[in-house]
């Protein structure tokens, strides 16, 4: 009996040891238990490298000695790390912080139906809102919460994490402000006088406090597992100044921060299991010999040539010169046009274009649905008594025709949204009594993070209430349009306001609508054709926006290397359904395509499909004369050659062995494309454009009832923020109209703008390789799964552990940086 017992104990011990041994062989064997992430806005990898290699004349060391020491000598860096999608802070940080495909696609987004503006850079209103108990999180976090995408910091409990003010900021800590403000004023009187003379740098008040906090807590608070530090200084300087000296000052400041954090970590008890990470969201396109030149798209759209639009932006034009800009809480900035062809003086009610130009090398433009314009023009004409007889009949018929060709889509929208809003309403009703029971303020028994959670829930409900109200207002106009009768039109028994929603863009425009966009009536007004019907060709002014944009030229062509064409190309999505019948089977994609317009004969279709191993595949198809007419798409395919958008074929840095023509004729996996193009001028543009313009469904598939309806509504909301046109600036051009950004810009797919930074160094237990520069290219989607794998929180298939799954994390689509993992 005793022997048997002993044997059983022995067996158990062996099994336990075996299990422990197996565990040690798992990826989590690299014992990263604590993360310190240094997030730097707009820090290009190539730029850091250039300065790390530059020697200081006095010391003989690198001018960025700490980056050299920590990441070059004692860590691993990924020089070919790229932004996936637009090189713009809002989307890029969103992708880095969630590890999922792009859901937020601009620093500013507009809801086409309600004109609700999502301003993800709205920091000052956030601070005020938080102070007034109105908001809890930055707008980006609110959106991600609604679509149930957790952030990296959410993987750690409130007590286990320290976060800095940033774009995706959850909650807020007044102590950081308070301590930062106090620390700005040196105790020594001579230092205080000097600081006063130098000018107190309020912009860095919290940034420097975050550094002090992290440096202190790394040693004193071993219970904290996650730190992030966010510094936008380099991005700020780089937009303004193109000289290396000014930028180096900002970089040296960052370098010292890295040094202090590293030193503090080395002195802490958890140095061995800590990983320090340097990451940036995008690069920067800048040259010391060139000023970046601005081109005013708002002015263009407001001009007669551009369609006479009343334009909405989220940033005030010439902000620094406007008295109104002193008030930072204005939701939408309206720039009325004196050249509007049918909406003179109605900028307050009927804007017809929305422009987001942040990042400045790109701009997203929404135009009001062209059919709404046609209806609006016709209804205005029909309100005039001198439109009579056959012309009146024809105009009414044209109105009815517009309604009929949209009827099925409008009905579907109305029906589905009515369902979705009802579900949302029921959720609101369910939540209200719960919220009433919750404490919104920190008390002795309610910690601040619990109060924040409670307020967060309350804000979600309040936002849902506002959303429901706004969306229902838009649906009411759809209802009215669907119920519109010809006889009422003839008899002028309608109010335009009831039929054409104010402050709404309606559904997105098709390619055909954008090529033949109706901007107003012709000077002669409505005209009948030979059959007595309205002659649409002669009755309406039209603009082909693709051609208009690409034809823009400037006169002052003064800088070598900067062309007189401010716009490089225009891109838009082409629905898969429209491609059916236009391509042979072997070219047929399985999702929407991206059409890039660089001129009538310089166009490309980017086709994508899921490959046999599940990896995305792309085909770069040169085309010309793509047109959509009567809902039918036509184009001619062209042989690959020089001059097509993205200019891969002629790029000297294209890494394709052998016959380039043959290579471009075939489908290639994302990995193959990345290897071929990442060092080209437009780097990973083909992948980035697809990421940017593709829709990425989110959420769980097994939901039922209200949960499923609300999830569908949230997906609809994301779709409604998608712009009609993505406009890319030529090299060293930008679309900033808020001010001037001569130093440089980003937002494009130029390698200078997409080459961002990812470096990692750790203690002995992390086993992160030292002195390793990885040549393999990676993009933003790789960041989060790599860190989580190092921490043992996801498996080899990028699936989260059960605990992480319960927190809301799902499989991560990105490729893990495998070189960091030591066998």
């Amino acid at each position, binding site marked *: 009996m005793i022997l048997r017992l002993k044997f059983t104990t022995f067996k158990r011990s062996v099994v336990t040891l075996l299990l422990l041994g197996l565990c040690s062989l798992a990826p989590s064997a690299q014992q990263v238990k604590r993360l310190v992430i240094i997030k730097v806005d707009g820090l290009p990898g190539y730029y850091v490298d250039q300065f790390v290699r530059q020697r200081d*004349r006095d010391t003989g060391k690198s001018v960025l000695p700490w980056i050299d020491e920590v990441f070059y000598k004692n860590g691993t860096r990924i020089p070919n790390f790229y932004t996936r999608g637009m090189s713009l802070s809002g989307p890029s940080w969103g992708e880095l912080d969630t590890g999922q495909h792009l859901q937020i696609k601009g620093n500013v987004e507009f809801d086409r139906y309600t004109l609700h503006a999502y301003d993800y850079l709205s920091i000052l209103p956030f601070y005020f809102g938080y102070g007034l108990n109105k908001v809890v999180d930055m707008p980006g976090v609110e959106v991600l919460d609604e679509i149930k995408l957790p952030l990296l910091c959410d993987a750690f409990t409130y007590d286990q994490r320290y976060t800095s003010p940033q774009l995706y900021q959850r909650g807020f800590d007044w102590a950081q402000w308070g301590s930062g403000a106090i620390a700005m004023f040196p105790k020594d009187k001579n230092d205080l006088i000097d600081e006063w*003379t130098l000018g107190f740098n309020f912009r860095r008040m919290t940034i420097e406090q975050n550094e002090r906090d992290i440096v202190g807590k790394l040693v004193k608070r071993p219970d904290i597992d996650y730190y992030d530090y966010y510094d936008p200084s380099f991005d700020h300087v780089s937009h303004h100044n193109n000289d290396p000296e000014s930028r180096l000052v900002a970089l040296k400041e960052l370098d010292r921060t890295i040094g202090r954090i590293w030193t503090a970590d080395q002195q802490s008890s958890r140095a061995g299991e800590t990983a320090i990470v340097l990451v940036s969201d995008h690069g920067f396109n800048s040259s010391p010999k060139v*000023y970046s030149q601005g081109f005013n798209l708002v002015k263009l759209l407001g001009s007669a040539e551009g369609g006479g639009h009343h334009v909405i932006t989220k940033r005030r034009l010439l902000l620094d010169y*406007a008295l109104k800009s002193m008030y930072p809480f204005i939701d939408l900035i309206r720039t009325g046009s004196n050249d509007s062809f049918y909406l003179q003086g109605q900028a307050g009610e009927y804007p017809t274009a929305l422009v987001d130009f942040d990042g400045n090398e790109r701009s997203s433009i929404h135009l009001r649905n062209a059919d709404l314009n046609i209806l609006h023009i016709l209804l205005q004409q029909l309100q005039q008594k001198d439109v009579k007889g056959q012309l009146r009949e024809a105009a009414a018929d044209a109105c009815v025709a517009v309604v009929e060709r949209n009827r099925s889509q409008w009905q579907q929208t109305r029906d589905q949204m009515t369902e979705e809003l009802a579900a949302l309403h029921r959720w609101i009703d369910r939540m209200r009594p719960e919220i009433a029971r919750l404490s919104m303020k920190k008390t002795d028994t309610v910690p601040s993070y619990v109060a924040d959670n409670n307020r967060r829930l309350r804000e979600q409900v309040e936002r849902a209430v506002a959303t429901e109200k706004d969306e229902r207002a838009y649906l009411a106009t759809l209802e009215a349009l669907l119920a519109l009768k010809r006889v009422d039109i003839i008899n002028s028994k309608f109010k335009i306001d009831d039929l054409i929603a104010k402050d709404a863009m309606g559904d997105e425009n098709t390619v055909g609508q954008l090529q033949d966009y109706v901007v107003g009536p012709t000077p002669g007004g409505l005209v009948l054709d030979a059959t007595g019907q309205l002659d649409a060709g002669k009755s309406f002014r039209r603009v082909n926006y693709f051609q208009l944009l690409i034809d823009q030229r400037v006169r002052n062509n003064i800088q070598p290397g900067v*062309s007189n064409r401010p716009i490089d190309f225009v891109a838009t999505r082409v629905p898969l359904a429209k491609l059916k019948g236009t391509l042979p089977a072997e070219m047929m994609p399985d999702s929407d395509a991206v059409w890039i317009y660089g001129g009538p004969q310089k166009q490309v279709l980017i086709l994508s499909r899921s490959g046999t191993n599940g990896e995305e595949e792309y085909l770069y198809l040169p085309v010309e004369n793509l047109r959509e007419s009567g809902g039918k798409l036509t184009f001619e395919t062209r042989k690959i050659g020089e001059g097509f958008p993205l200019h891969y074929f002629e790029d000297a840095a294209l890494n394709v062995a052998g016959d380039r023509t043959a290579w471009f004729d075939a489908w290639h996996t994302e990995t193959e494309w990345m290897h071929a193009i990442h060092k080209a001028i437009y780097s990973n543009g083909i992948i980035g454009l697809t990421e940017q313009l593709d829709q990425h469904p989110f959420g769980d598939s097994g939901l039922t009832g209200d949960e499923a309806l609300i999830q569908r509504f949230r997906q609809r909301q994301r779709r409604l923020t998608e712009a009609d046109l993505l406009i890319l600036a030529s090299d060293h051009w930008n679309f900033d109209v808020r001010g001037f950004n001569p130093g*440089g810009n980003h937002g494009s797919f130029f390698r200078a703008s997409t080459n961002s930074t990812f470096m990692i160094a750790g203690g002995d237990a992390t086993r992160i390789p030292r002195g390793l520069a990885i040549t393999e290219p990676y993009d933003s989607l790789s960041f989060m799964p790599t860190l989580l794998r190092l921490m043992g929180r996801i498996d080899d298939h990028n699936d989260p552990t059960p605990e992480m799954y319960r927190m809301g994390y799902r499989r991560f689509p990105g490729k893990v940086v495998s070189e960091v993992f030591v066998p």
Partner: protein
Amino acid sequence: MRSIKHRSGLTRVGVCVITLVFAILQVEPIRLAAQDVTAADTPASTIAPKPALDGDAFRAETTPVAGGAEIVTIFSRRTGENETDLPLLSVLRDTLGDDILENDRLRYLWLHTYTRPTLTQKLSAMVPFLYTRTTNKDKVGSKPPPVVIDLHSAKGGGIWNTLFWAAFKRVLMDEVGFGVKATTLQYRQNKGDQRRVAVAAALSLLSVFHASTGERVLSDQELKDMQARLGLTDKVFGGHMQPENLGRMYDNDLAKTRDYRGHNWELLRQMAERQGLIFEPLEMPDGSARHAVLWVTEDDLATNKGKDFEARFLNIKDPWKDDKLARWNGYIETRWYDADDREVEPQTPGATKRTLIPLALYGLDHPKIPVILVDFRDNGNPKKREMSHRALSDVTNSVLALSSAGGLPYFFGRYVYDFVTHRRGMDVNQSSRLRSYAQLKLLLSLDESLDPEFRNEVAHRVESSTLNPLENDSDVEEHIARVQYKNLMDYAADSNGLPAKLRDDRRQEMVRFEHSTAAKTAFNVGHLLTLGMWTHREDDTPDMLAQMDVRRQLDYHERVVREIALRTAGPEIDTDVAKLKHSLVFLSASGDAAANKTARALGQIFAASSDEDLRSLCLAGLYKINSMTAKRELVAIYQNNKVPDHWRDTSAQYLKLAIEKGQRISKQDAKTVATITASN
């Protein structure tokens, strides 16, 4: 190349040669950013850019001064026949006659165009509301130029000066009549402006010289310090700036100035583009564009006749409705442009010829907006704008006797007016364009690629835009510069001249070795009350000279240590360790009189360092500095149980030794030391 009316063949050949040399040197293309300039972007026939840096623009020369000093002079090179290089600026470096760099001290800075006004000029400068020049200084005399700034005691328009003047105005000036008050204020303003122009000119010159690849008789740090000190002259507490912060001051100013420049460059380009005008930046020899010219083409005058014109930011009259331009008989240029509107060589196939009329010239290094410096149709335009701020101040101060401290209605009214004009970027009531004018004059004197006729046209118009009767015309200034330079050299060679002044200055510097703060304050008051006629000085005995040598070296090493303490996260990684050790060795040997801040800096370096030698030297330095703060730092190290024991023991030993030697230590720290002694 442009075809320029009256352009000299010599200049054209010169530019071609420079272009050719530049092209040859560019064997390997420099990769700018993501994209290289493609052949398509820059057709072969396009006019090549001027070299960004022209190291040959300047020459520097060092002249020894008896008593252990030297004058460094920067010259503008002149390449024309019978031309000699033009002296621009000189600076005195007091070396104490040895090769030790640590005890060198930059003192006086002279700008050779800055001169004492004549009696007529002074009288003119006193006339209220006289905003124009009257005469030039024809006879320069034999005096050296006045000092623009003493870099060692850069008090600038310091707080005491400001307070004294405010009190004087308030107490005395209100009692006298309008005439005296207006005259005094007018003269003071003109005098101050004359110095501000000199400071701006010196600053511009040094920044261009600094960026050029020419000779380096001034070290990088000296050049930065000089620019920082000059930039501080207009700040209330500018003279107070501690040496260790001069680098930050320089960095801040550099970033700010370049921000203004780029911003205004782009603002002006966009506004010109929108109005259909031609924008042309003018580059300094260092490649920086600090000015720009707007042109209109003759063809556009006909095409756009009667078209709306938006003058905001441009601040010129509508060219499309200006009949004067249709009959223009002033300066014109003819240029050729290709199909992409890029300027090309004359008669390039397919190129279009355009005749250009200059409209205005702007300064770009100005806060908020590009400021118009020359209006080729209306000389009075920039002058009126420059006058607006001045006239408003003169009327309110001299005539209406209003001041911001005098009453709330005026205070608020003025505040709102200033705020609105500044915020909207209206070119009235803006900060003065003195700096831009000074830069323009520098450009005109340095840029030989400018068409001589155009340069003369601009120079003539600039002169007539100036408000200050104390200023001189550019053509006279060159003569003044040459004579004043010669006078300075004579002054330096005269044993009763600069060497004597140098000796007096050193004797004055020695006062701090002998006297307490209270005594020094009393000496200063005496100096003030005797209107500067009496100054207390020490005898320059060998012992005092030796003390000065050590003190200057100590100042140097204190600065090194403080700068490092401010920035380091670990000196072994981010610092020139040899330089730091050198300074620490000096402090530990001769640092008795080092300041408290230096002691704190040693404590910080000790904490940040893991190098045994550095730490050891920090403790030795803390022991050597005879101050309570230094001992407090040693006590703190001793009491810090995270510091390894051997360092704590060393601290304890130093503390005990300090007590034995009777060094200054607080009572509380002395008690702590006593405890150490007891426990040991």
